[in-house]
């Protein structure tokens, strides 16, 4: 196995052993800090319920992410062609980004209900910023010589976009998408905390009221795992695509 993947596993094992040992040594009560073994027991006990809520949260995050892509990429294309459009709308994209999502969620719930729709929108709001910003940059950051080269071959605007600007923006798009995976998960969970009756955010909040700390931890671990897998799936698509088109792959 590659050492790159081995080291974090070793760190994980050391932390778990230390944690287990210290909890036992100081006799810390379970509702303050459960031992790793207790967490595993709860994870197995409520595996069914965690799996269900996991699916709810992750599908909200993924759908929000996809919505952000579907809306964000065309906005980036618009911005890349029209400074006017960028000047007009960019401040609002920034406003969406800087306004804490938690303050916006009550409105979303008011308008779209406690169901998954408000969560998907919250996830999309979080994810859209890096997608718009990075894709716009990728579509714009083209050496003037490349544009002159296309002009020297009498390329049409459409051809210049399809053959030059779009492929050039792919690595930028993906750097935005990777950040967006994490942000969309955050958006979905935050919205669940404010008001919902399912999802991992709801699960953590419910168990918090009953001080079932071990189950809270189990849900948290499921959430991290989901976020990591989401990130790696997008990274995998990125590396496959970049490999196929030979973009930025080091020898």
């Amino acid at each position: 196995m590659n050492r790159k993947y081995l080291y974090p596993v070793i760190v994980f094992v050391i932390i778990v052993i230390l944690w287990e040992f210290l909890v036992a040594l100081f006799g810390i009560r379970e509702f303050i800090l459960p031992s790793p073994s207790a967490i595993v027991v709860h994870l197995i006990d409520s595996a069914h319920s965690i799996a269900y809520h996991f699916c709810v949260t992750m599908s909200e995050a993924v759908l929000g992410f996809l919505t952000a892509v579907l809306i964000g990429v065309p906005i980036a294309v618009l911005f890349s062609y029209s400074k006017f459009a960028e000047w007009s709308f960019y401040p609002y994209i920034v406003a969406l980004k800087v306004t804490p999502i938690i303050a916006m969620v009550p409105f979303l719930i008011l308008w779209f209900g406690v169901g998954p729709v408000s969560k998907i929108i919250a996830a999309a709001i979080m994810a859209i910023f890096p997608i718009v910003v990075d894709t716009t940059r990728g579509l714009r950051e083209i050496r003037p010589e490349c544009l002159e080269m296309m002009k020297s071959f009498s390329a049409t605007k459409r051809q210049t976009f399809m053959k030059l600007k779009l492929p050039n923006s792919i690595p930028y798009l993906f750097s935005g998408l990777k950040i967006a995976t994490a942000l969309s998960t955050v958006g979905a969970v935050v919205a669940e905390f404010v008001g919902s009756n399912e999802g991992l955010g709801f699960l953590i909040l419910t168990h918090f009221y009953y001080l079932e700390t071990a189950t809270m931890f189990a849900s948290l671990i499921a959430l991290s795992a989901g976020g990591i897998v989401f990130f790696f799936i997008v990274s995998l698509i990125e590396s496959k695509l970049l490999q196929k088109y030979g973009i930025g792959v080091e020898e």
Partner: protein
Amino acid sequence: MTPALKLENISKIYPSKTGDLLVLEKIDVEVGKEEFVSIIGPSGCGKTTLLKIIGGILKPTTGQVLINNQESEKVLQERKIGIVFQSPVLMRWRTAKENINLPLELMGKKTDVTHLFDLIGLKGFEESYPRQLSGGMQERVAIARALVFKPSILLMDEPFGALDEITRHKMNLELIDLWQSGKTELSMIVFVTHNIIEAIFLSDKIIVLTKRPGRIKAIVDVKLERPRSIALRDSREFVSLKRELRELTEA
């Protein structure tokens, strides 16, 4: 006889906040058919600007460029002009072959380009990506790309400027062979350089520009026999031309 290339009263002004910048002033030149022309002058004298104006990808502020009595923009649209830029400007996500194919793709044509790899000495590198090729090889790909649609005029902007002396020398020999071989449809090459030896070795006519704003300082006819070979560089005529040009460019 009508000249194949006629520059009439070309001037170029770049407007800027600190005042308009006069780059080229009153350029009048006539070039006959089957001529290899070099434009030489100190850096910043507007050589590149002049070449882009000749190629029809940049509009002059005054004057016009006529190629066989047609405006150069029109000639460019008819795909009669191939341009090799200062850097190879290859698309990094395309193989050498795909890069060379680009102009044909834009025209909606499909032609076999394998013979070009023989011509430019890159047989076996068809599927290589630009990052896998040396600077000299990338430059060859750029030349092949400019030749692929069989233009009658080739414009080259310091194509070998970034190469080391040995490679530059080799590329000069290959370019002159290509020009003299009759394997292309070229009836004229316009070559921008600041290297006097390169200019004399390749050209029939050398246009010497002054420092900014670029004006014509002299037009030197190079009446050295063709086909030319490397031995020519030591001949007395070559050396005296070299002295003449050095005095022209230094004064």
